[in-house]
């Protein structure tokens, strides 16, 4: 599927919780779970577009789930029905979907965004582990392929009080997928390695071009320098080296 430039028209853009928003666009979209789009709804400033993962695609409806962090996401959060964005995508290499057996998905915070689409696309049985700070969100959209849903919160307000990695056991799974904060993913990697379970990690690094040209998103992997935007964002667990 070749990426392309296209427009998306805002159908809805609603606050889910605190700084978390869900935006739905209509247009001509395609893409696999783990792939992303570069978005902009402005002219020259901010200079760069912003990468957001595909959270769902259904027909001509594309869903993003995003957290307001700074300038760009703040502008996104103010878009209204009818506003038009420029999109570039689908970009990057997503999750492999051809694994057999039971699958474990471990997501932290806004890292759940690509995992929603993943869970909807996989035909396997899935156990979903979601770690949140204050309160879980968006878990109602997770779809029927999810068998068991494990929730943790740092606040203890819902689910297990602590890190999701405390209650994550990969032994039953043929493969594990993870996306979320680096420390969480690093822990997941250690756990999976211990139990010898194959792992796929969705990485994040600041991007300029999103298409593989600027080398701004390069990371050092065990298989050499790789671009998160083109060679990833999804990498095999053994390729990724986490620091501290």
């Amino acid at each position, binding site marked *: 599927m070749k990426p392309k430039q296209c427009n998306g028209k805002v159908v809805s853009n609603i606050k889910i919780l605190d700084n978390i928003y869900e935006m739905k666009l209509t247009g001509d979209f395609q893409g696999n779970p783990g792939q992303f789009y570069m978005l902009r709804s402005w002219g020259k*400033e901010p*200079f*760069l577009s912003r990468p957001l993962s595909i959270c769902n695609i259904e027909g001509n409806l594309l869903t993003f789930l995003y957290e307001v962090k700074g300038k760009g996401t703040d502008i996104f959060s103010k878009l209204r029905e009818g506003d038009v964005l420029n999109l570039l995508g689908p970009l990057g290499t997503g999750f492999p979907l051809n694994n057999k057996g039971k699958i474990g998905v471990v997501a932290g915070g806004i890292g759940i965004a690509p995992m929603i689409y993943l869970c909807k696309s996989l035909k396997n049985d899935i156990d979903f582990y979601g770690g949140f700070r204050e309160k879980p969100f968006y878990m109602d959209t997770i779809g029927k392929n999810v068998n068991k849903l494990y929730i943790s919160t740092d606040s203890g307000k819902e689910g297990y009080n602590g890190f999701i990695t405390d209650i994550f056991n990969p032994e039953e799974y043929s493969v594990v997928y993870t996306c979320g904060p680096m420390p969480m993913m690093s822990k997941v990697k250690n756990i999976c390695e211990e139990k010898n379970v194959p792992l796929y990690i969705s990485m994040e690094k600041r991007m300029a*071009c999103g298409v593989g040209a*600027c*080398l701004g998103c*390069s990371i050092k992997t065990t298989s050499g320098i790789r671009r998160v935007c*083109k060679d990833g964002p999804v990498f095999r667990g053994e390729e990724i080296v986490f620091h501290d």
Partner: protein
Amino acid sequence: MTSVEMFGIKFKNPVITASGTFTIDYEDFFSLSKLGGICTKGLTLNEKEGNSGVRIHETMGGLLNSIGLQNPGVDRYISEELPHMEKYDTVIIANVGGSTIEEYVKTIEKLNNTNIPIIELNISCPNVKEGGMAFGIKSDIAFKVVREVKKVCKKPLIVKLSPNAENILDMAYKCCEAGADGLSLVNTFSGMAIDIKNRKPVFDNTIAGLSGPCIKPISLRMVYEVSRIVNVPIIGIGGIVDYKDALEYIMAGALAVQVGSGNFMKPDICLDIINGIEEFMEKENIKSLEEIRGIARR
């Protein structure tokens, strides 16, 4: 109508993609044969992994980058990437980096054996033998580099100037004296950013390179000034994101322009620029870019 000629080589139009900002990856979005030219990423003798840590930081009207010349080395570039790029009908310019004169010389000797028609020498790289200061700061050092490179280079040689040069006019003059066939300017400006939460520079290397529309007023001024004192073709670079920017450089005296960071805004921004120039020429009844080149200088 928009075509220009440099060193007897014809460019369809004056819009060239700048080094380090444009690769074959863009072919998904438009036919690269539409471009006036493509500058390769900075090629060094040996493979380079580039810098650790954050590599891109957005600033007002531009970005800081600290890529650190990541590239597969000139040999692998020639064997793996060049054949793919040569499929397009556009002028390829090989951008060459290095930390010593010998490195430049050896890299260029390898490029001599390719069909690449033009070499662009990036003298902004830190110069290890002279204590890490870039070759492009002091004109006397640049003079030496260009003279040595010129001895071996079998292709027209464009020297890419750094805006951090102590004296951009003297630098341009000395590079021409040393044999540069053309000049391109500018490379990125030395800049930095601090992460106030961590209380540390954003980049592992502290200093990074600033590019984008934010630098245009300064780089345009440099192109304007340099084009008044040298007779070689000049390629204007810095913050070009629309046809009006490109025309400003041409009216300042540039024969062609390079578009760098602009590619990150919109993958086919160069097409918009090319079309915009064409429309402007039609509307203003300009038959050739020669009519307006340097016109703001008079």
